[in-house]
């Protein structure tokens, strides 16, 4: 089971980062995704399948500064 933002999540096998982000209504322009210590380039969201041991952090940027 993968861990996303600190929570253990059961996903259908073969779920990609992009599918997960779409399901959870993330705005792709406002995020950075880190998986097991590496930043996933946006161009790979569609290819990268979430594996059961993956530890993922989705950083969502909100406006203000």
């Amino acid at each position: 089971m993968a861990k996303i933002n600190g929570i253990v999540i059961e996903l259908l096998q073969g779920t990609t980062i992009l599918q997960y982000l779409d399901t959870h209504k993330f705005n792709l322009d406002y995020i950075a995704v880190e998986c097991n210590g590496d930043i996933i380039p946006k161009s790979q969201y569609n290819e990268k399948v979430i594996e059961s041991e993956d530890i993922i952090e989705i950083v969502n940027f909100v406006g203000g500064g």
Partner: protein
Amino acid sequence: MKIKLNGKLTETECNSVYQLCDSLFKKFENTTVIINSFQLKSDRSIKENDEIFLIDKNKMPEKEELSAMLFARHTPKIHEKIQNSRVAVAGLGGLGSHIAVSLARTGVGILHLIDFDVVEPSNLNRQQYMINHLGMYKTDALKEEILQINPFVKIITHNVQVNKSNIYELFKEDFIICEAFDDPKAKATLVNGILTQFTNKKIVASSGMAGFDSSNSIITKKINGNFYICGDGKTEAKEGRGLMAPRVSICAGHQANMILRLILGYDNI
């Protein structure tokens, strides 16, 4: 014994700060005494290798003394690392303007300031600018201000909007980058750009510091060895919930302190 007096190696026979003041025809009560980066309130004995600054109150120091005096409150030994560091600050609004000033006061050697905007009246509710800066590029206004605080910082400015394709050229010389934009898309673009186009740079970013929620909900979080983020992660600026100086400054303080820690080799939060 040998001491360092106002930045110069000096031989002295004085055993106390009072005696030292006397020997230089200074009155202790008219002198600010900094000893080993700490301001002295009453007399104490002097030890070998003490670093002492005697600064006459209400008097403009000679130029050559100024550098040593500005650095009097800087902690010996760690100051050299800070002086040799270089930090890029991208976005010079409520976060970036305070972060840059804070780093300049701390003695960072080179500041690389990036923004495309000009100072306008609505900035003054939370940003480090003044009425006389209205209409100036933020890069120029902040440079002017920083040099009034610490004239020994080297400042590099770029009046440019950061996008995916200029990130490499803009930041290739910087080791530590501070993301201090207002716009969430710009924030994400810079963070993704730095962390995918380079492998050895550290970025300290921000998200969520609008309104007046608890100060204590603003934290520093380490995402990985090169990526830190400060803020509460959720409180965006929106209609009815603007950006206010206290909370924006708290977040700026978090970012500046994390940057300082990275400069000094501490990579945990």
